[in-house]
């Protein structure tokens, strides 16, 4: 691992709603270097909430506290809105789950990629266009010229997700947060998208946070895995060692997966232990 890009210590996120407060993330700590870090867990375990608090994407009703929340040399908690804007999308960016909902339906996809570049660089539009075309080629889109002027409804899901990746990477960020980037995609298309991400991470000086609920996928794709349950990190383990996971929740999740090669009559169902909440 090279230098630390992101340091998080005791991150808590609290939502206030109709007088009630609920703690969505509790005491989460991790660091990110030049690596692929996965955050896995069920829906509602707080994995996306962690990703969003790094980019300050929460509504004002959310209260984010932490002992440390540092990106490179910037304290993300103390940073002004202006500083955050300079980071968001330029030095740290986020890939959302479903390209169908995250692309602007009435703007050509190439323009959307160029716009991401123009938002952070003072260059002529022509140059931004050129960079967008380069970027499309880099995410393995065969005919960038043609795809540049398509509208989002004219591209397939896999292509849409690669366009989203192009848009997020064009500013050459140091950290990318990918929030379930392949969940809306087919198995066959998923491979392509993962390959593109893999290539970008190995070519550039990039740290990737890969948020997913698919343990099987992350154990092949990522270097390190954080397992979250009810807002807490219950286990942090190297992806290659997942087979030796010690926490019963991680083991339960792995065992609950149906398998092609090892059919079983009934799948073991996860038994939740209330003690995990405080462990």
């Amino acid at each position, binding site marked *: 691992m090279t230098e630390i890009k992101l340091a998080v210590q005791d991150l808590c996120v609290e939502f206030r709603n109709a007088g009630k407060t609920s703690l969505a993330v509790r005491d989460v700590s991790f660091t990110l270097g030049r690596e692929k870090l996965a955050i896995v867990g*069920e829906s509602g375990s707080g994995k996306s909430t962690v990703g969003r608090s790094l980019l300050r994407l929460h509504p004002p009703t959310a209260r984010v506290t932490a002992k440390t929340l540092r990106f490179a040399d910037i304290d993300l908690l103390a940073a002004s809105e202006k500083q955050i804007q300079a980071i968001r999308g330029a030095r740290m960016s986020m890939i959302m789950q479903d390209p169908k909902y995250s692309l602007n339906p009435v703007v050509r996809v190439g323009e959307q990629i160029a716009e991401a570049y123009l938002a952070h660089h003072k260059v002529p539009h022509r140059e931004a266009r050129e960079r967008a075309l380069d970027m499309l080629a880099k995410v393995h889109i065969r005919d960038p010229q043609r795809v540049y002027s398509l509208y989002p409804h004219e591209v397939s899901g896999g292509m849409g997700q690669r366009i989203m990746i192009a848009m997020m990477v064009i500013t050459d960020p140091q950290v990318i947060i990918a929030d379930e980037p392949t969940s809306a995609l087919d198995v066959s298309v998923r491979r392509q998208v993962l390959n593109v991400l893999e290539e970008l991470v190995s070519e550039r000086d990039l740290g990737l946070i890969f948020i997913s609920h698919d343990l099987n996928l992350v154990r092949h794709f990522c270097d390190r895995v954080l397992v979250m349950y009810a807002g807490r990190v219950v286990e942090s383990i190297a992806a290659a060692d997942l087979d030796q996971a010690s926490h019963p929740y991680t083991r339960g999740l792995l065992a609950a997966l149906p398998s*092609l090669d090892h059919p079983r009559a009934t799948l073991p*169902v996860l038994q939740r232990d209330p003690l995990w909440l405080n462990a």
Partner: protein
Amino acid sequence: MSMIEIAGLNLSFGTGAALNAVLHDVALNVAEGEAFGLVGESGSGKTTVLRCLAGQYQHWTGQLRIAGQAVTRNLPLNHYRTVQMVFQDPYASLHPRYTVDAALQEPLRIHGIDGRGQKVSEILRKVGLNDSFRFRYPHQLSGGQRQRVAIARALILRPRVLLLDEPTSALDVSVQAEILNLLADLRRQEGLTYLMVTHDLAVVAHLCDRLAVMQQGRVVETLDSALLASDGATHAYTRLLVQASRDIQRVPIAV
């Protein structure tokens, strides 16, 4: 006896230059009590086949028979006492302002069946819920509980065939295991026939006896699901699917 017979099923949308054929001579046979998987990438037409059987499309050509009865253009009411469907997303398939009780009574009322209260409690128990869920609204249920209610609603008319459209793809792995177990148990107890659409080969291998692989509106291969693990698939596309799901999985560990 074949429970579901499909022969020469063709379907297209649009006319003239915009004609888009989505199903080409689809043929399938599902035996009584069998669980049959239908896999393929998005847009290959697998859900469309289910929709034809459920009577949601009427302009198809070909022969469809369920339990020996031909599926006609204008389906009689009792068709739905033989065939019911469970949809992909339990968050979208339950009426947000109907209680569980109202949602489950509706099919009974449509079919003029008496003793509804009794039947609702029975079916809730059968899907692993109980009477305390009866007067809740969908937003008061978790994703897995909602899918249980959707399955209960499909089963309350005591159908013989369940059409399952990706019943677990919107659920977490831990909840997916519960629902797959429930579906396996119900099939055994009730002698149901399943036709299940999915894109997860591991789910097919777990629940189904046989499967058909679809690509661009055609059935490209039909095989026993036991053959998947032993590399018995012959069509290139099937092998690609097997490869893709094997890439991302290894030996499961024991708990």
